[in-house]
């Protein structure tokens, strides 16, 4: 078999494969639920209800989506330039670390001055962390996939070391956790009485910001050009290495905001279980969004909904929560296939 590009794909050609991918994902999830001895319809219903069925559920989903929007944007920005940042998890912790370093009393300032400084410092920390793999790539030709992946392990151990050493909360009853943020360093809630913090708003603003950069700026154009065809971009006079470094700084900064928002908006202190893999899940979010920054918001809500829904489903129906991860993996693989099939025709020879 071989693949032939389709010049002008029809609407059906564009819509049917993604729809089939989604349907197949649901069918596979149902079969797995049956394997666990549960009724697939009630399992799917419980996931939906747990994710969007009540005000509490909806707020939980929005809160869970917040870090995923940031990491999803970080991945989308990087992948667009074919810079494979798999290290959003480490950059997230870099932002969280900076938040805790500055926000636990080191800077006794009012919120209006403190929060912008923390945000900026977090962005810089994440950007710096990704700068190292970026420079290793541009200077030495070291593949960034491996370095960013290994950085995740190194940086998490570094955080663990700090939490058991200099950053350990003396009031923490021996647990490896940092001291709590001072009230001025906390992100307030958007609406009084509703458990949703300004981190979510910041995530939406970032998504729009990234969209503007990608579609309206020279850097966005250069990033796309480098991603599409390096040789052509170089021929057109685009400084590839510089663009890659800028991409890395932007991507690392965005991922760090996830850590800032989780600590300042939700948790109030830094622990080793701050992120249950938000950095890795960001890759799924970005791919489901076709690397479109505004699509990232939608994809993050979808992914967060599946996770939150699966948590509550698991308690009610006694099906392991890993069902959510399987659904997302299947959705990811089928979706990249579906998008390809919308643009290419499979020809037998």
């Amino acid at each position: 078999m071989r693949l032939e590009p389709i010049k002008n794909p029809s609407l059906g050609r564009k819509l049917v494969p993604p729809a089939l991918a989604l349907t197949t994902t649901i069918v596979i999830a149902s079969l797995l639920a049956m394997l666990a001895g549960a009724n697939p319809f009630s399992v799917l219903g419980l996931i939906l209800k747990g994710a969007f069925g009540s005000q509490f559920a909806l707020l939980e989903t929005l809160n869970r989506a917040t870090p995923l929007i940031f990491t999803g944007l970080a991945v989308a920005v990087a992948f667009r330039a074919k810079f494979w940042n798999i290290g959003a998890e480490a950059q997230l912790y870099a932002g969280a670390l900076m938040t805790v370093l500055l926000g636990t009393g080191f800077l006794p300032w009012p919120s209006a001055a403190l929060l912008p400084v923390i945000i900026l410092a977090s962005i810089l920390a994440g950007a710096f962390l990704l700068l190292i793999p970026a420079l290793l790539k541009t200077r030495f030709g070291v593949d960034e996939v491996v370095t960013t992946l290994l950085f995740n392990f190194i940086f998490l151990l570094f955080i663990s070391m700090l939490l058991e050493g200099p950053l350990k909360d003396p009031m923490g009853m021996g647990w490896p956790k940092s001291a709590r943020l001072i009230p001025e360093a906390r992100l307030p809630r958007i609406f009084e009485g509703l458990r949703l913090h300004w981190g979510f708003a910041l995530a939406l603003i970032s998504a729009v910001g990234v969209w503007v950069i990608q579609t309206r700026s020279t850097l966005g154009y250069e990033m796309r050009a480098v991603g599409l065809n390096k040789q052509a971009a170089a021929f057109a006079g685009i400084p590839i290495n510089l663009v890659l470094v800028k991409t890395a700084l932007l991507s690392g900064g965005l991922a760090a905001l996830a850590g800032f928002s989780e600590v300042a908006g939700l948790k109030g202190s830094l622990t080793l279980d701050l992120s249950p893999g938000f950095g890795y899940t960001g890759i799924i979010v970005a791919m489901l969004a076709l690397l479109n920054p505004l699509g990232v918001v939608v994809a993050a809500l979808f992914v967060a909904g599946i996770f939150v829904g699966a948590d509550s489903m698991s308690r009610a129906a006694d099906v392991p929560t890993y069902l959510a991860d399987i659904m997302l993996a299947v959705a990811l693989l089928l979706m990249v296939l579906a998008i390809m099939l919308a643009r290419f025709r499979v020809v037998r020879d």
Partner: protein
Amino acid sequence: MEIIEILFTASFWAAAIRIASPLIFATLGELICERAGVLNLGIEGIMVAGAFAGWMAVYSGTGLWVGVCVAMIVGMGFGLLHSILTVPFGLSQHVVGLGVTLLATSSTYYAYRLALPEVTSPPKIQAFQPYEIPILSDIPLLGPALFSQTPLTYLAFILVAVVAVVLYRTPLGLAVRAAGENPAAVAAQGLSVTAIRMGAVMFGSGLMAVGGAFLTMSAFDSFFFEMVNGRGWICIALVVFGSWRPGKALLGAVLFAAFDALQIRVQQTSLGTQIPYQIFLMMPYILSILALVVMSRRAEVPAALMVPFNKGER
């Protein structure tokens, strides 16, 4: 001083060879995939799946070697999925690989929870026991280190030689290497690039799964979550370190494992207890990155690595 003494103990080298064994299997697997032109980032998840599948088979009553075969088959299954998406459909090898890792890991955890819903501590199996090779195991230092290992370790070393011979001395190996260097030339010979690449990815994935199974069936005797713990990613670094050659990759795996065994022992010395243990745990990852920096300049990357081949396209 203490560190030098450690280097001359047989138990240290025995541990190094033991730690190297799963890495050798998985690195060989990745090497075969990449030699055929396919980067397989499914490695981490496939190792998890292999670790569980082999152990689960033995736990349900099959023999140990049957367990190894089960792991291999499960690995090949994920390899088939990976290769269908990346070879004939030519999808992004990064995205598919990460997707396969996520799928393999999550479905393994799901299966574990379904198979053993009640357990708090993971049950144990009767794992592979060390087999002392007669005469050879009596050599001082070398004997206990190299020739008192479990059968799976011997298999790992034999496989390095077999893969090297097949890659460099047989038409099959030539076809695999050519598929990774110049697929158009392979197609011009009337061979199917698709079939060669898919076969290589499936076989390679099978080896990755056996590497995972080594952990549950030889190094330890039960299955834990997170037990693969980044070994797959390290194997990807080892392939680069070994310049895509089986012999050099073996050397890299043993060096890496020796370093890992050393850091465990130094942790317990008087010097080591003054340093946070996390520093020691970081070392293998830092070492991998440094090795990549040193080797990447000289590395002879397969020319068509990560380049999909679509017949009729120029």
